[in-house]
């Protein structure tokens, strides 16, 4: 109380002018304006314009001739085999890349949390793949996964495994694409987990140790529960990333159809193929909105699960 009193007096003595007061109410908006202007131009407008375009038949070659289709583009998607294939691929590649990635990141973070020699080096090294461009990483991996002259098949050959067609085989190609995603994002997630781990109070570990808990038990009963909000965050971000996966499958073979039989074509890539391969902008816009809604649903489900769990916890 005594501390705030002089400040209050000072404020009373120097009454701010009307202009100053007006500025004070307006300024937060002024500071925010650049962001919202940019957002309106490059976020909101494209979003709404895409919704508008998705209701028409529009071709890139003849953008002036728009033909009203209502929800025809959306209805067509439901009977479009290629749409379902790409939706399925998005899901399987999403699982193939997200699950190992998060599990490995957790393990790596746990290791990094120990007192290590050259900790900073390891932590920086973790982030290097993340700093590499998608294009560069994908092109290198595409070489590694080459069928005839690739390093991976060469290594497999050394242990007597027949060469795998990493481009054409459905499962193999999805694993190959997932590998690129895993390689790029594991380190990033590991660092986020590490930050989460370091905010867990050390008293908890000490108490657990007193009770005779092994390192493993500590990991499962102290670290994991403490990390829950972080894990939820990374799961949400990875899910969104997986739904939007685009660069890796596009550059893997440089094919807009995601391989000769669409075996690793994701939703993002299918949208690109419709829009910039076939120039059907209306259909591409409809796919874009379906993806948007899909992400909203996924994030919503995630949030629901989290809320239910924390309510359960509170009730316990």
């Amino acid at each position, binding site marked *: 109380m005594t501390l705030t009193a002089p400040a209050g007096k000072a404020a009373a003595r120097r009454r701010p002018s009307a202009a100053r007061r007006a500025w004070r109410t307006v300024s937060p908006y002024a500071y925010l304006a650049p962001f919202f202007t940019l957002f309106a131009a*490059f976020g909101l407008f494209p979003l709404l314009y895409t919704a508008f375009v998705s209701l028409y038949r529009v071709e*890139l*070659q003849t953008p002036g001739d*728009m033909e*009203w289709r209502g929800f025809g583009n959306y209805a067509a998607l439901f009977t479009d085999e290629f749409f379902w294939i790409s939706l399925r691929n998005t899901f399987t590649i999403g699982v193939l890349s997200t699950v190992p990635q998060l599990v490995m990141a957790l393990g790596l973070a746990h290791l990094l949390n120990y007192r290590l020699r050259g900790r900073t080096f390891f932590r920086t090294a973790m982030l290097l793949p993340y700093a590499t461009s998608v294009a560069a990483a994908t092109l290198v991996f595409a070489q590694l996964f080459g069928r005839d002259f690739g390093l991976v098949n060469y290594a497999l050959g050394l242990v007597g495994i027949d060469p795998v067609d990493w481009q*054409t085989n459905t499962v193999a190609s999805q694993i190959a694409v997932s590998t690129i995603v895993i390689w790029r994002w594991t380190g990033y997630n590991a660092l986020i987990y590490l930050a989460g781990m370091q905010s867990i109070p050390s008293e908890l570990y000490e108490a657990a140790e007193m009770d005779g808990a092994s390192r493993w038990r500590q990991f499962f009963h102290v670290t994991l529960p403490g990390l829950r909000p972080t894990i939820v965050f990374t799961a949400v971000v990875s899910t969104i990333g997986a739904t939007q996966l685009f660069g890796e499958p596009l550059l893997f073979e440089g094919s807009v159809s995601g391989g000769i039989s669409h075996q690793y074509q994701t939703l993002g890539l299918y949208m690109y193929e419709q829009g910039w391969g076939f120039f059907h902008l209306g259909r591409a816009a409809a796919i874009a909105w379906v993806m948007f809604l899909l992400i909203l649903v996924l994030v919503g489900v995630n949030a629901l699960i989290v809320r239910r769990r924390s309510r359960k916890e509170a009730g316990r």
Partner: protein
Amino acid sequence: MTIARSATGRRTTGRRATVRRAAVRLGAVALTGALLAACGSGASDEASDGTVTLTVDLFGSFGYKEAGLYAEYEKLHPGIKIKQTDTEDEQDYWKSLQTRLAGGGGLADVQAIEVGRIASVTQQQADRFEDLTKYGAEKLKGEFAEAKWSAATTKDGRVLGLGTDVGPEAMCYRTDLLKQAGLPTDRAELARKWSTWDGYLELGKQYKAKAPAKSAWLDSVGSLYTIMIGQEEERYYDASGKLIHESNPAVKTAWDTATEAAAAGLSAKLDQWSPQWNQAFAAGSFATIPCPAWMLGYIKGQAGEAGKGKWDIAKLPGGAGNWGGSYLSVPRAAKHKKEAYDLIQWLTAPEQQARLFEKQGNFPSSTGAIAKVAGATDPYFSGAPIGKIFGDAAKAAPVQVLGVHDKNVADQITNALSEVERKGTSPDKAWSNAKKGVENITG
């Protein structure tokens, strides 16, 4: 108030149509603007000393720079500088060109068009390219092969591009590999033995029986299909512009031959234009490859110095055909249209086309140039008389009916053939996949 004409007779008032069109244009501009910022615009500007920089945007390997043609043109025309950009894959090039055409910005003064796209240009986008008759192009008509000229002419007589090369077809082969398998290597003898496609497959089976390890008869069944379809006049469209790929017996024959080759295991199962395909040239993964004239430069590039003298060229099985070829056009949005026209007229003139063939192997579409190169041989291909082989093929090749989606349909079918040979998909299933793929594009 503007009364916008509603061409399709939709229930729109003039005003609404105008607003909508304006909105579309705004969107297209916003969209392409963002894309262009990344590509760096190909715009050219006059420097303070009055030099005009002409921009030329190409795909694949036209070879103008390599043949020294730009340098010569710059010497002949002081005050002109030429800047070339090049995209390796035509599909990527076409996508980027379409985006820039829709936005109306970032276009080069000269844009190349592949023959599989020329129908789309004349039928759908004629308003976006300069009518070259404005600059007196009609007097060049007699210099070009008739089919080449007419394909770039719209119904109302506008000329939208000047022909560069054509793609007369032949068969390239590795003499060293054929010899190892105990097959003849003489081009006349081979041409006799594989005068039909059945004969070609038969030789392939003989090759397979005695071939060196990891070496197949041909690179991919997709290329076999493409070269065969190049021998046909009607392919995916009939003269009225209707899609006929499902009913055309020529497509069926080529498809069946390709799947037969796949079943017999004659192919190295490589996708054309993939990095693995590129590596395979030097590695000797295949003994023969169907080659249009423009492929010669590509083979030299991929097989390198080490391949010199190991390759040869013979007449194509089953008669003459044409695969590919290109045009040079001037977009409406170009900055220096007149100068651009002068340049493409010079580049496509007989002397330059002939020189380009001798240096790079791109076969001329200009009749004068064809006569000039009749005696040409190529030491890289064991001294093969390329002028005669490709000249004869060019003369006998059918005049092809072109359609708006020619290239897209072809891509779907060759993709399906890759499924057959690489995934073991049954030909029937693969054909239905190709059909669905085509519907997805044209529907």
